[in-house]
């Protein structure tokens, strides 16, 4: 046999499974190195502005007029976890839109990855892992800012961080799967206007869904953000375990969405790369 084997032996084993996805994650970390200062600064400023304007400003009026409207807690305490889940949703959506366009259409770096031993599954899962990491950073900073505002009263608040990550991923998976089928991000603004903004406003983020007209209340259960808000709020207010069955239901719905979204994301990335 004339095939030289020297090269073969010198070659490292091709990365597969977890190691392959970790390489994709590493690529994103390299990209992020140049942007992280501005990005982290924004992660501090955004919640600080919202908590000041709505939690303290608006909340001041709310608390003065109806002290018991939010189950005996101040509006700031009610609002902070809702905002945490809401911003995790937005971050998850955003991270699954433009980076996916960049990878599949604009700079085609996902195609470049697929020319190596990296497969479509690693591309998709590495991307989701990176989104989870970014969501984690945002949630940690948010929780810190909320604590500085006095909006954290229970050590359980730490559980708000994984709850926020889960909420963001529940949106990132399906959104990534959808964007993988698109040639342009044109649909993004429509999705933001008709899906994200209504969910942001009516999922118990700013007021309890019990304030909605009776007929609309069950619809809130269809909103993934509602389940995220219930979890983060339960965590920061320390009421999560008061009704364990309810908490598990919220958790199961979000985990289910992450799983379905993740599977669709992998499938659509594969359809695009391996045509």
């Amino acid at each position, binding site marked *: 046999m004339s095939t030289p084997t020297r090269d073969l032996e010198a070659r490292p*084993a091709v990365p597969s499974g977890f190691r392959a996805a970790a390489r994709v994650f590493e690529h994103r970390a390299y990209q992020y190195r140049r942007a992280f200062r501005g990005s982290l600064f924004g992660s501090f400023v955004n919640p600080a502005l919202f908590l000041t304007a709505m939690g303290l400003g608006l909340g001041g009026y709310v608390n003065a007029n109806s002290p018991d409207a939010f189950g005996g807690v101040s509006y700031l305490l009610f609002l902070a976890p809702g905002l945490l889940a809401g911003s995790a949703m937005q971050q998850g959506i955003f991270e699954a839109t433009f980076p996916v366009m960049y990878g599949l259409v604009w700079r085609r*770096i996902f195609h470049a990855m697929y*020319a190596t*031993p990296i497969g479509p599954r690693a591309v998709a899962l590495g991307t989701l892992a990176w989104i989870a990491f970014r969501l984690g950073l945002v949630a940690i900073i948010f929780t810190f800012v909320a604590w500085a505002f006095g909006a954290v009263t229970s050590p359980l608040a730490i559980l708000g961080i994984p709850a926020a990550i889960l909420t963001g991923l529940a949106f990132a998976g399906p959104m990534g799967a959808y964007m993988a089928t698109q040639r342009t991000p044109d649909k993004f603004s429509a999705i933001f206007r008709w899906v994200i903004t209504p969910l942001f406003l009516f999922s118990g983020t700013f007021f309890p869904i019990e304030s909605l007209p009776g007929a609309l209340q069950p619809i809130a259960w269809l909103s993934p953000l509602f389940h995220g808000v219930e979890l983060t709020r339960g965590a920061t207010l320390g009421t999560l375990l008061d009704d364990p069955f309810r908490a598990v239901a919220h958790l199961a719905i979000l985990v289910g969405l992450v799983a379905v979204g993740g599977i669709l994301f992998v499938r659509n990335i594969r359809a695009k790369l391996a045509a």
Partner: protein
Amino acid sequence: MSAEIASSSLIHARGLTKRFGTFTAVDAIDFDVARGEAFGFLGPNGAGKTSTMRMIGCTSPFNEGTLRILGMDPETEGPEIRGRLGVVPQQDTLDEELTVRENLVIYGRYFGLSRAECGRRADELLEFAQLSERRNSRVEPLSGGMKRRLTIARALINEPEVLLLDEPTTGLDPQARHLLWDRLYRLKQRGVTLVLTTHYMDEAEQLCDRLVVMDKARIVAVGSPRQLIDYYSTREVAELRFPVGVLEALDGQLDGLADRIERLPDRVLLYAEDGEAVAEAAHHRGLRPETVLVRRSTLEDVFLRLTGRSLVD
């Protein structure tokens, strides 16, 4: 079985077919690429060259036929095969959010190389691609030729046994093309097998030891550039260019002048062993073309003969 194929050819295809819906992009083609050779797919746009390259690159499943690369099966051993290939796609896929050097390092990581090894190879390859001065520059401001060289450097980070180049010099100016050809020639001398597609006959003649001519999803001829020219064309060609209108009125006057005659919209190609003699004979017949050009046959003539069309429209 695979060992016996591996010993004879690096890439082995029989009846390879690729369909997109009802459209057949590649129609039952056969070819073999031997270790160390520069092998080309020559053909016009849409001939099926890129689809073929993507099947070889194990990023595009095929519908029918057999394909073995480095003795392995793309359907089951795609990642292992891709680990030993270098791919230079038609469209650059560099990451513009990274620097020149980072593009190489991060790419090496995909092949399972350590960071230190990636860095070492990146510096070597930047030298080879004549991009060392731009190592810490962003990718975006680089010229087209530099980006191409960076893409080639990136494709070499895993020390591939086969380098796949899809239209490597399309869109580059002549100087950048010659620089690139020089780099590819050096790679070939180092023993890297080159597989490239092109619709430039000069590129095919410069770089390829052997090539196949593709047209409409099929292979229409195979051989070395010299063999193809000898077999499908004559040694020389006399190109007679006539004013508009005159060409159509030449009916019959050219008969018997040359071994073969091709009429193009603006000129007539007379194929013969001795082009000068043919041009002179035409003059004796009273033909007065605007210009006369006698040249050696090229792959362009081969393509014209095989398909009745020009390579570049």
